């Protein structure tokens, strides 16, 4: 049986007046049905462009190459009509800012029922009843009344619940969440993360969670891929990654995070230098200019993402981190 999602050799390039920008290069990923995978990276690491490319949502000057197979079928660069049988139906997505993802002119009911009318052929009353049930499932009290409200009448956390309800309308096999809690306060973030975990258990869907916050990944995912400069530099089960990061960047990222649960006397183990310029990526390893372990080979030869153990991969010339 093929995996739910198989990304192979995905490259994303943008043509800009200042030259070509490489947002992602040779990205390989797989996701099994029901599995949760976190993609962590800083701004410009390519994590968001990756999922936008899968769903055919790149900006006009962007071009994706490679292969993305969903349930065995190629979906990369499909025409919109064919893609619409998958996206929003079998693959749903929620974004960071629920306010800009909802149409401010339309009541929640209009934005929800149209999905069921278009994709499932329901009539309006049946669609409305289904939507109210879903809003209740995502924890919106008094849903029968609130479905008639406009987005601005909801708080940030409630809007994200509405977005999640919309994503679930067609019972997707895969939910992609791009920084779903970044715009929320930490106590509301906790509510939304609990909701996602509960829904995943109830509905058995797979989750692709994109975030800059390793703490969020630690609680929400089974596996994690670390991206840097448009490439996956490490992929591992979460316990393994947090216990013993194998790539210097993963280790640097973990060391950069102040911990609430540990006293860390002295300085944080910050990563020196600046994130890479995607218009002028260095030859060899993209992380080399900031890497404290770099040696000559890192300058000339790009490290492949290779298996260390059956379930762990890293892109680094070093066998072991010192």
């Amino acid at each position, binding site marked *: 049986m093929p995996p739910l999602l198989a990304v192979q050799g995905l490259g994303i390039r943008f043509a800009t007046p200042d030259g070509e920008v490489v947002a992602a290069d040779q990205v390989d990923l797989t996701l099994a049905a029901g599995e949760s995978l976190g993609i962590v990276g800083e701004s410009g690491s390519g994590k968001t462009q990756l999922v936008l490319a899968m769903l055919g949502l790149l900006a006009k000057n962007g071009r994706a190459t490679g292969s993305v197979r969903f349930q065995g079928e190629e979906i990369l660069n499909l025409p919109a009509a064919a893609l619409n049988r998958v996206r929003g139906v079998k693959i749903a997505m929620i974004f960071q800012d629920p306010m800009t993802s909802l149409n401010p002119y339309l009541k929640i009911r209009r934005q929800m029922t149209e999905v069921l009318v278009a994709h499932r052929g329901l009539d309006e009353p049946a669609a409305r009843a289904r939507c109210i049930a879903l809003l209740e499932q995502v924890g919106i009290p008094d849903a029968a009344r609130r479905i008639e409200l406009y987005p601005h009448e909801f708080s940030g956390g409630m809007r994200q619940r509405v977005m999640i309800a919309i994503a679930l309308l067609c019972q997707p096999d895969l939910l992609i969440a791009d920084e779903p809690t970044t715009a929320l306060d*930490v106590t509301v973030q906790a509510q939304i993360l609990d909701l996602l975990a509960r829904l995943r258990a109830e509905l058995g869907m797979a989750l692709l969670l994109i975030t800059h916050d390793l*703490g969020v990944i630690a609680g929400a995912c089974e596996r994690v891929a670390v991206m840097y400069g448009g490439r996956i530099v490490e992929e591992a089960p979460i316990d393994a990654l947090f216990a013993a990061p194998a790539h210097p960047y993963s280790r640097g990222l973990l060391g950069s995070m102040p911990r609430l649960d540990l006293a860390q006397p002295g300085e944080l183990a910050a990563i020196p230098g600046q994130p890479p310029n995607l218009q002028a990526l260095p030859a060899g390893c993209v992380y080399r200019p900031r890497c404290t372990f770099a040696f000559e080979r890192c300058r000339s030869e790009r490290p492949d993402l290779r298996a260390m153990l059956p379930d762990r991969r890293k892109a680094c010339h070093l066998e072991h981190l010192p």
Partner: protein
Amino acid sequence: MSEQLLRVEDLSVHFALPTGFLGGHRPLKAVDGVSFTLAAGETLGIVGESGCGKSTLGRAILRLIEPTAGRVVWQGQPLGALAADALRGLRRDLQIVFQDPLAALDPRMTIGEIIAEPLVTHEPALGRAAIRARVEAIMAETGLLPQLINRYPHEFSGGQCQRVGIARAMILQPKLIVCDEPVSALDVSIQAQIVNLLMRLQASHGLAMLFISHDLAVVRHVSHRILVLYLGRLMELAECHDLLAAPRHPYTQALISAVPIPDPARERRKRRIVLTGELPSPLDPPSGCVFRTRCPHARPICAEQIPRIEPVRFGHSIACHRWQELPATPPAALA
């Protein structure tokens, strides 16, 4: 940490929001009755969620916003009583670093001009060469290559812009810096660089810092003491270690338990105190204790009376009617 630099007494900032009808106004209590002290060389973290008044508090202390009530006493002198020119003299001791590093810098000035500006204002007699020497010295200290002196802010990354903002705040050798979410706009790896820089500057200059942030993990790392705000009111104030090991206020307990820990085993094990509901509107705050609408321990008294700030023990104070009855369990998040 002996000398008391700053004393904030019962400080309130209320804004009058026009209701748009016949010139009517509604009060918004951004900060309401907050008190604390700060010693030389000390860092006080001010933590809270959006709308809790943490930025307003920082600005009111520097009198960038006029407080509605209460006093700010700087080295024994009430700031409110000072005339404008006396206040200007004091300003060199009180500096601020802002959240959005690019927005805080004038795009038409070079980095050198931006950093030199406070010096030119406060020490007008200084010659060009002396100014340049001071600017280059502080650039080197904040991790900026002196040859970047003639560049413009747009040529810099967010982390470098924040270094410029810090250099500008440091050039007058102030005694206190208010850092208003100084690392929130930065990536994790850059955030750590800036946190390290601020802590290094504090140690070498004996600076006092008010570190305002929504990120409790960062606040824990930099602060000696932490003040927790909720809807403009002080909930709890304690030494960093006490606040994390034995938080007494139900809000502090929930806040700590909500922070994701980058340790999967711990995340799976921990019991989150999930608060119901969301922040009430600051325009229409709950009566009595402002936290009661989300508090798992609320009783009728919490709706009737505003809780007084009481000492749990020396250096640890709390505003809660029920703190003595509630168990002082260590937070499950950190167990």
